[in-house]
């Protein structure tokens, strides 16, 4: 895709976790309202997800924007596919589309 080494690390996170949220802060302590909104939606749905704190890693923070062709954080990936940022995910959550997508993709829920 590119010779930017951070892309491999981003791809690694996406490959090794079914649901990845690139966010500011972590799921327990989000540092931004938009990140908090998605993390909370996933938590309420009891989805197992990995939160990647972009504030802890400047390379990922900048790299993920180019990687996804998406200028803002948070960014949600499900089974390797970029689902969207805060507006899209919120819309999908409210309409029930997000749950449908997660089910279709066979995502694991916390038991």
């Amino acid at each position, binding site marked *: 895709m590119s010779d930017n080494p951070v892309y491999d690390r981003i791809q690694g996170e996406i490959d090794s976790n079914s649901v990845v949220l690139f966010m500011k802060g972590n799921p327990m302590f989000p540092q931004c309202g938009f990140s908090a909104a998605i993390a909370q939606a996933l938590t309420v749905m009891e989805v197992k997800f990995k939160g990647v704190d972009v504030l802890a890693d400047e390379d990922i923070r900048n790299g993920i924007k180019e990687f996804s062709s998406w*200028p803002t954080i948070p960014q949600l990936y499900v089974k390797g596919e970029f689902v969207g940022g805060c507006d899209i995910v919120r819309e999908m959550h409210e309409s029930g589309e997000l749950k449908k997508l997660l089910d279709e993709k066979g995502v694991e829920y916390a038991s």
Partner: protein
Amino acid sequence: MAMQAEEIERLIKEGLPGAEVTIQDLRGDGDHYSAQVISTEFEGKSRVQQHQLVYQALQGRMGNELHALQLQTSAP
């Protein structure tokens, strides 16, 4: 480093000719906007692709000068 609503509208219309653009300043602080964009360019595209077209039109300002832009896109 805020942006004027008119400037946002102008850039979106420039990138997506013929688009219908409605901008709202959500907090009256010139920093948190919402934009509703209706464009024929969006036909047959996913929501992610539609938002990417708007971000392209904003030429890198999103996430920089433009801190928060709540986007709603649709085809006419």
